[in-house]
């Protein structure tokens, strides 16, 4: 084995030994890091799933044409004719007020009861229009929506991209909050790790001095603590993933889909491998930086 590989092995072994023998001191830093990574992972999970919904909607290229309550049969036929004539329209389907109410009840079981309390069904009839795949651009959708919206008997027309736009804004806000909250807790985790490493270094000063006296280089002494921080972060990342996966599986297995309301229509999935990698890397970097802080300006000095 090459000398550099032996050096890395030695640092990793020493770090592992340090974590195991001082597990009670390490535990608080590990918990803080794990909690921060769970927060970060939860936001990643939510944002990824919402993104999946968005891309699904984008691919669908659908718009809705809502009829006025007083629309006549002639106007209805005129709209059908216009939809059949429009080249960009691949297909369309009429959804009557009763079907709309049934769909609403299915999607929003709790709110569905409200409809029963009303004397009249307030939901208008509508057309669900699908734009041909090659023409699913925002410009075409906007144009078709605008033209259909001006037809007599039409209350209004709306395409998914409007909803997507609003949702994207929501997802961006969610990401921002996630990054802010996750960043703050990760920063706290870094400081905690730095303090834990400092405490460990002070507690093991005699041992460190002995290591130096037998000829251990600063690279071995400091490297071992840096690796220790990185390993703590990696361990916290693995624990955070276990917590997230458990919560996710528990949620899927035990939550009643009807009680999820809007969420029940989401094609839920766990974090993708790249995100799992990113989360583990965040943990490692947090631990490594925290450990480095312990030796940085104002940190532990051996000379």
């Amino acid at each position, binding site marked *: 084995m090459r000398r550099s590989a032996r050096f890395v092995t030695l640092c990793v072994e020493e770090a592992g030994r340090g974590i195991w023998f001082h597990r009670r001191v390490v535990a608080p830093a590990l918990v803080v890091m794990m909690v921060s990574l769970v927060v970060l992972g939860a936001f990643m999970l939510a944002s990824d799933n919402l993104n999946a919904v968005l891309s699904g909607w984008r691919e669908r290229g659908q718009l809705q044409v809502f009829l006025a309550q007083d629309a006549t049969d002639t106007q209805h036929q005129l709209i059908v004719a216009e939809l059949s004539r429009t080249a960009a329209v691949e297909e369309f389907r009429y959804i009557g007020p009763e079907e709309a109410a049934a769909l609403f009840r299915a999607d929003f079981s709790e709110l569905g009861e409200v409809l029963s309390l009303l004397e009249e069904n307030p939901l208008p009839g509508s057309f669900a229009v699908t734009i041909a795949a090659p023409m699913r651009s925002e410009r075409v959708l906007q144009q078709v929506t605008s033209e259909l919206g001006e037809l007599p008997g039409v209350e209004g027309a709306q395409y998914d991209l409007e909803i997507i736009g609003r949702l994207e804004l929501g997802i961006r806000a969610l990401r921002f909050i996630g990054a802010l909250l996750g960043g703050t807790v990760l920063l706290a985790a870094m400081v905690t790790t730095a303090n834990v490493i400092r405490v460990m270094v002070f507690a093991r000063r005699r*041992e460190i001095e*002995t290591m*130096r006296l*037998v000829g251990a280089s600063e690279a071995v002494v400091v490297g071992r603590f840096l690796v220790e921080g990185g390993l703590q972060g990696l361990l916290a990342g693995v624990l955070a993933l276990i917590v997230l996966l458990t919560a996710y599986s528990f949620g899927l297995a035990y939550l009643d889909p009807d009680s999820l309301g809007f969420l029940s229509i989401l094609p839920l999935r766990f974090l993708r491998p790249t995100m799992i990698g990113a989360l583990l890397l965040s943990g490692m970097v947090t631990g490594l930086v925290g450990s480095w802080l312990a030796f940085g300006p104002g940190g532990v000095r051996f000379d």
Partner: protein
Amino acid sequence: MIRAFHVTKRYGSITALRDVNVQIRPGEFVFLTGASGAGKTTFLRMLYRGELPTSGQLIVDGRNVATLGRREVPKFRRRIGLIFQDARLIDDRSSLENIAFVGRVLGLARGESRRRGMELLKLTGMDHRAELYPAQLSAGEKQRVGLARALMSAPVLLLADEPTGNLDPDTAIEMLRIFRAINRRGTTVVLATHDPDMIAALGCRTLVVEGGRLRSLDRPSEQDVS
């Protein structure tokens, strides 16, 4: 092996060592003695660059300790074996692990470090205690493990600071016998002690530290060093 030219060590206004001039040849066995606080430990610490001389030149193993770069110090120390009064073993490692660690620091593979560690434990008569932790060892056993650890890097110079200070007379004599055997293999030994019996028993050259000054006695009697 060791040459000191007008070496002085001060701590603020206190002068611990004053104008020390001494030479220790390779393969020599030298006692360093003096009353507590006379400056024995300070002298030893300077030899392994635990302290720097305030003035003068100190050459150890061909290197001027004052001009050693930060990165050169570990390599320099790997040529020197250190033994302390309290052994300074790492508590959370077994006897063998304490010794093997030095091998790992030197760049040896784990298996090779353990094999050599075991050989050294046999040499010091501690192979039957290889898996015990320092807390499970007596003072004499700890010192033997400390000695085995000091030998792991095959040092050219062995510095021992009161290695028999905590030991009963029989164990102390046994330790001294091991030191003498190591010295006969060619390793230079500097052993700090204030035990006149031990010095008289071996009759080696002795450096006496008194009031910060160092004088050399070739074959001291018990009276010279008491």
